[in-house]
């Protein structure tokens, strides 16, 4: 694909007419030769392991909402190829800009699961150190972080570090102005950033048809001069292959790259949502037949890259991980109310000092009563 970078025709910016896929819905090799090299077997095996662990983490997190251990959890079940693919496409020094639905991506990246769940547990807005993992705070406002990713990527380019940023957004966020401003800024400044749209077909309840009249979301790139591609988001092989090219493109100095992954949110928006109010079960069932983990597992087995024993051992690893998360999350988090005043500014203002004293006195009075 490296020659395509030098293709200056506007058409070269357009995505493939149909989503790139390596696998059929059942995990057999798809017909036709994809225009991207297939990822190395070791990367596919790693992806499989992270996807299985990620899904188990995701169901554990949903269970924690039922036990009152999490305030809310937006599941990414069904999107594991994207959650894992987006992270494995990056080098250690690269940056990930996740949304609130990308917690599986965070743990894939190596963020401590308790730190990753702080936002959703409600003990801190961001429980991890972004600079430790090169992971920006999970972003709740839609698409605002695309500009941060573009700016940070441009900063890396200016510093000559060779690092790239990958920013996650959903289909709904592509309607926000910041998404468009970010594509435009990134293209004008040749910022090495990959815009990774996980099109899971619903923005809470609103279907894709109400977000856009474009042939697909990947067509939003050409208006900004951004090379774009669409991929079967439930085909981990294809996601990894396309993202590898997107990251290579960005890192080479050729500017940003937009990838739309067609996927599906198997669960409701969050545990507090009722998906039966806006979509049919038979639609969900159709997507269940295209499950990203089952497809990759079938493919790897077919190619002799995965044994039944390894499947069992990965499943056991996932259970152990879920156990650790459950145990860790069963401990009550320690919150320090006086910390409220610590990180508003570098130095507390006189007003914040006064308010801190007020709260401190309240806490002491409470303590005296108990």
């Amino acid at each position, binding site marked *: 694909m490296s020659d395509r970078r030098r293709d200056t025709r506007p058409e070269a910016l357009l995505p493939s007419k149909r989503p790139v896929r390596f696998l059929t819905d059942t995990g057999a090799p798809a017909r036709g030769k994809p225009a991207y090299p297939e990822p190395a077997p070791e990367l596919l095996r790693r992806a499989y392991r992270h996807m299985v662990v990620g899904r188990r983490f995701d169901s554990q997190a949903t269970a924690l909402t039922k036990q009152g251990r999490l305030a809310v959890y937006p599941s990414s079940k069904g999107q594991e190829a994207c959650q894992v693919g987006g992270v494995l496409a990056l080098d250690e020094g690269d940056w990930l800009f996740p949304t609130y639905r990308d917690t599986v991506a965070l743990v894939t990246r190596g963020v401590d699961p308790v730190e990753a769940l702080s936002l959703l547990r409600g003990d801190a*807005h961001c429980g991890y150190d*972004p600079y430790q993992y090169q992971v920006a*705070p999970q972003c709740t406002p839609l698409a605002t972080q695309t*500009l*941060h990713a573009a700016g940070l990527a441009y900063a*890396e380019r200016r510093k000559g570090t060779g690092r790239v940023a990958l920013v996650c957004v959903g289909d709904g966020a592509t309607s926000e102005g910041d998404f468009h401003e970010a594509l*435009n*800024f990134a293209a004008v400044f040749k910022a090495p950033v990959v815009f990774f749209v996980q099109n899971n077909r619903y923005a809470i309840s609103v279907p894709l048809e109400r977000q856009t009249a474009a042939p697909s979301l990947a067509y939003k790139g050409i208006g900004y001069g951004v090379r774009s591609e669409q991929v079967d988001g439930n085909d981990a092989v294809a996601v990894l292959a396309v993202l590898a090219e997107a990251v290579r493109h960005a890192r080479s100095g050729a500017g940003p790259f937009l990838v739309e992954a067609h996927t599906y949110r198997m669960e409701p928006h969050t545990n507090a949502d009722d998906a039966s109010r806006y979509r049919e079960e038979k639609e969900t069932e159709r997507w269940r037949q295209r499950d990203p983990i089952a497809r990759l597992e079938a493919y790897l087995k077919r190619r002799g890259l995965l044994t039944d024993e390894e499947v069992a051992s990965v499943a056991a690893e996932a259970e152990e991980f879920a156990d650790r998360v459950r145990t860790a999350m069963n401990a009550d988090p320690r919150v320090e109310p006086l910390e409220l005043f610590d990180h508003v500014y570098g130095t507390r203002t006189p007003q914040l000092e006064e308010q801190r004293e007020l709260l401190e006195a309240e806490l002491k009075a409470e303590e005296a009563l108990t």
Partner: protein
Amino acid sequence: MTTITMAQALNAALRDAMEDDERVLMFGEDVGQLGGVFRITDGLTAKFGEDRCFDTPLAESGIVGFAVGMAMGGFRPVVEMQFDAFAYPAFEQIASHVAKMRNRTRGRVTLPMVIRVPYGGGIGGVEHHSDSSEAYYAHTPGLKVVTPATVEDAYSLLREAIEDPDPVVFLEPKKLYWSKASVDLPVRGEPFGRAVVRRPGGDATVVAYGPSVPVALEAAEAAAEEGWDLEVIDLRTIVPFDDATVAASVRRTGRCVVVAEAAGFAGVGAEIAARVQERCFHSLLAPVLRVTGFDVPYPPPMVEHRHLPDVERILDVLERLQRDDEPDVRYLPEAGAA
């Protein structure tokens, strides 16, 4: 000493900051070749190159959000919003990210960045070119909000804003851009959070900031002819707010008038009045009064002089300060007023 304008002082502050620290960048709309519509960035691209001072696409949210990312990446961006009302598209970035990044990451990610906003009226600007938007920013914890009233402060406060570890909304009073003073640069004044007494006086305290400071000073001179000895305080930084200087003055004078261009309702002037009465109630000899713009959308240029606080309106309000222990009859219980 050379005589320079406030615009030139701001330009010099940017130039010196960029000279001293190569992480400092300037970007926005028309700030490159043109030097900004008010010429505040004049010559910076020529001196430091396209990498240090550059034009961006025309999108304010984009400019601020891009600056957030660059600050995360180790730069110290200074961005220009072309006019007060044109900064509104950036409000989500400012309120949800610029103001909160340090807080939401518990001090791990800080954003040393400056958002420069030419603001306020009095220059005959057409619609959307004259808003006083300080209350929106001052009401957002995590932002520092600064506005110079003098040429020296324009330089000093902008240098400090660029060096500050926190994001600063730097409000430049448009109508003072062409005000002049003899200054030796570089000049450094009081730090953030310190108000300054611009005119000492004993009869009443007039609190003002930005474009209202020269108006308050002019009113004080006129009031002196009527026997009033007014103290005029220039806040300089709205956030952090200098309660100590304001309260000390009002406790001494017993009377307080707040002057601000913005609509009075729920504005910074209202906050100042509330803080003064909380801290100075037992020293007050009269109600704390405000002279502000009307609660109307900013008027067309041909009537803006009817809207902006002026000397006459400040002098008129002095009559309500109960100098002769005469209460304001409009607010007596029997008058049945609201």
